[in-house]
């Protein structure tokens, strides 16, 4: 595989051909925010937070699926991108009912952390305040749709790593929901192996382990990447 050289935020970096811009940036300690990307599973390119500007292209490109190419000049934090990311985060916060102060994932939540790091400290748009259910029918886990951001990490982790495909997305547009099997209570979803990968994958407090209260939930999102890597490289001890 050949090596290409490109510039990200004035920094000259090298990358393997075919590597994504997100990968390359992270290797070089350049932070590009994202919510739907999860190491170890396929990309959805749905959260649009990792959009970057590439010189010579008028369109903004998602870093998670854009391949590094020789001579590429990439900007990750132009004023426009900063503003757009802020607004995207606002949209996330208005869509469901995100109340950090009473959330199990308080201080372990990627959405909360991004709001802080991207300077989104108030939401100018109207909160939609949908009325959404909480499903705690599963013995070990629960899902609070109020906190779901539809990143589909759970769907992908369940399908691609565990192989159960218990999760999928139902409905469409603003009415989209993640569901288990035929949208019956999670506890009745026969395909679920209770492996808990979805809970680890979830960036917010939407999927949680039962019995944890406010701010108690810890997430180990590395675990999934470890599994994928170990399986591929046949190496379980690093």
């Amino acid at each position, binding site marked *: 595989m050949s090596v290409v050289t490109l510039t990200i935020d004035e920094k000259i970096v090298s990358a393997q051909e075919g590597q994504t811009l997100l990968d390359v940036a992270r290797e070089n300690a350049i932070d590009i925010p994202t919510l739907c990307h999860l190491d170890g599973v396929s990309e959805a390119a*749905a959260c*649009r937070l990792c*959009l970057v500007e590439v010189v010579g292209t008028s369109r*903004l490109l998602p870093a998670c699926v854009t391949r590094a190419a020789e001579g590429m000049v990439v900007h990750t934090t132009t004023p426009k991108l900063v503003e757009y990311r802020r607004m995207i985060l606002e949209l996330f916060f208005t869509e469901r009912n995100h109340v950090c102060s009473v959330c199990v994932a308080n201080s372990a939540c990627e959405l909360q952390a991004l709001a802080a790091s991207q300077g989104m400290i108030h939401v100018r748009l*109207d909160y939609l305040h949908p009325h959404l259910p909480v499903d705690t029918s599963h013995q070990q886990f629960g899902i609070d749709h109020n906190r779901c951001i539809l990143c589909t990490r759970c769907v992908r982790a369940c399908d691609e790593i565990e192989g159960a495909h218990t999760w999928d997305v139902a409905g*469409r*547009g603003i009415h989209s929901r993640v569901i288990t099997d035929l949208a019956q209570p999670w506890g009745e979803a026969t395909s679920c192996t209770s492996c808990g990968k979805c809970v680890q994958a979830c960036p917010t407090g939407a999927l949680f382990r039962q019995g944890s209260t406010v701010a108690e939930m810890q997430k180990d999102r590395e675990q999934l990447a470890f599994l994928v890597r170990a399986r591929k490289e046949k190496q379980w001890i690093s």
Partner: protein
Amino acid sequence: MDRSELNDLAQRERASWKPARLHCCTASGCLATGAEGVFKAMKQAITDKGLTDRVQAVGVGCLGLCGRGPLVQLAPQGPLFEQVSAEQAPSMVGAAVGESPHAAILDTAHPFFSSQLKIVCETSGEIDSERIEEYLALGGYRALHMALTEMTPAEVVQTISQSGLRGRGGAGYPTGLKWATVAKMPPGPKYVVCNGDEGDPGAFMDRSVMESDPHRVLEGMAIAGYAVGATQGFIYVRAEYPLAVERLRKAINQAKKLGVLGSGVFETPFDFRVDVRIGAGAFVCGEETALMASIEGRRGSPRPRPPYPAEMGLWDRPTLINNVETFANVPTILRKGADWFASIGTEKSKGTKVFSLTGKVRNTGLVEVPMGTSLRHIVEVMGGGVEGGSVKAVQTGGPSGGCIPAEFLDTSVDYESLAQLGSIMGSGGMIVMDQTTNMVEVARFFMEFCMDESCGKCIPCRVGTVQMHRLLSKIAEGKATSTDLALLEQLVPMVSETSLCGLGQTAPNPVKSTLRYFRHEYEERLRPMTSTNGRVPLPLRLA
């Protein structure tokens, strides 16, 4: 079937045509106003009058002026009857043998008809949509035969490139270039997909073409298949068009039976199968990656491009996707030559475009005009303008397009000119609005459409459309302040630039264009802000 058999069949068919043919439109528009009864009554009247050897009634495709249906035309060169009823059938049959008819006759010298130049609609309204023989009689499948027997695939691609044909689905991507890309991909399974998911509200050109002349689309697809090296085609039709589905299926079966589709087309080594796939009510499936997902039996969620379908499409194989009207142009281009086609239209937009002219305009229906015709000519001369009023704006391009105000009616209709005005050619919907139309409501209407049709995959479209809709509703209801308008104006570029697919990227366009041309209609609905009492917040004096 070889060349001479094809000619024989066509000649035999022509010979069987009666001296007078009563063409009764049996496309959806006229069927909805009772065309079927008229058609049956005419057949009956022919039998009753004992004229079966002199007159025949033919259920043809769209005759254009849908607003005045049911339409019946006496062919060849007879009068065009409007708003006919079954009771008038005997009289029209009488007209076929020289009696004077008792039915309202449309003036076919009117610009609505005389300004048209028909390529796509060439045989629409001339032939029985459900009989391949009639299509063959008017030269159908000649182009396919010619391509297979006289041209290399590269020459076919070359011809399409030279013709200057651009995609009729909206964006106007050069068709030849797309074909060349797919053709260049390494051999192996490739697919040809016809996008018949005409979802723009106010647009029905593709429905009409598929209902009126399904073989023309199939022929175009088969030629494309030969050119790019594909042996399987899919035609994806929205489920709201049951008649189009039925006629396409019938057409495919007839074509297979005659050996013009299937294995060994025209006894050459070229195989080409076509399957109809039906949508199930999702506008987003008009977006090509969503459409492919739907053909694969999945949720119609788009995916990022690149990779483009030309490299990685259906089942990750190279896939050529063109719109119905694009394919319908192909047979004629091959038969008449690239130069002929390129001589029509403007420098960058060649050929003709079919528009569905609707809204507050006198003559509603389908028109096919050379590219470069002015909006004014289409709306005011052909369409006859607004009944008892004046044009305020013309909406083109559906929910992805924009509203062009009356002062720009002299604009030539081509891809570039419309884009310059902040609208798009789109698939060809052209909706006329008069002075009573409230432009904020129009913007809200389209936003509601996009909000309902968003697939929900990416956040800017899923929630951005909802937020824009809320802001538009607030403005329309007089509850918004200038802060709300400012927020709307920030959402517009954000949603355009950050959405994953074309639906979200273009969803703000109607807002953008109405804000550009009718800003005062927004501003006059704003309410005053809560005052900060003139106090200046910063900088604070040091205490």
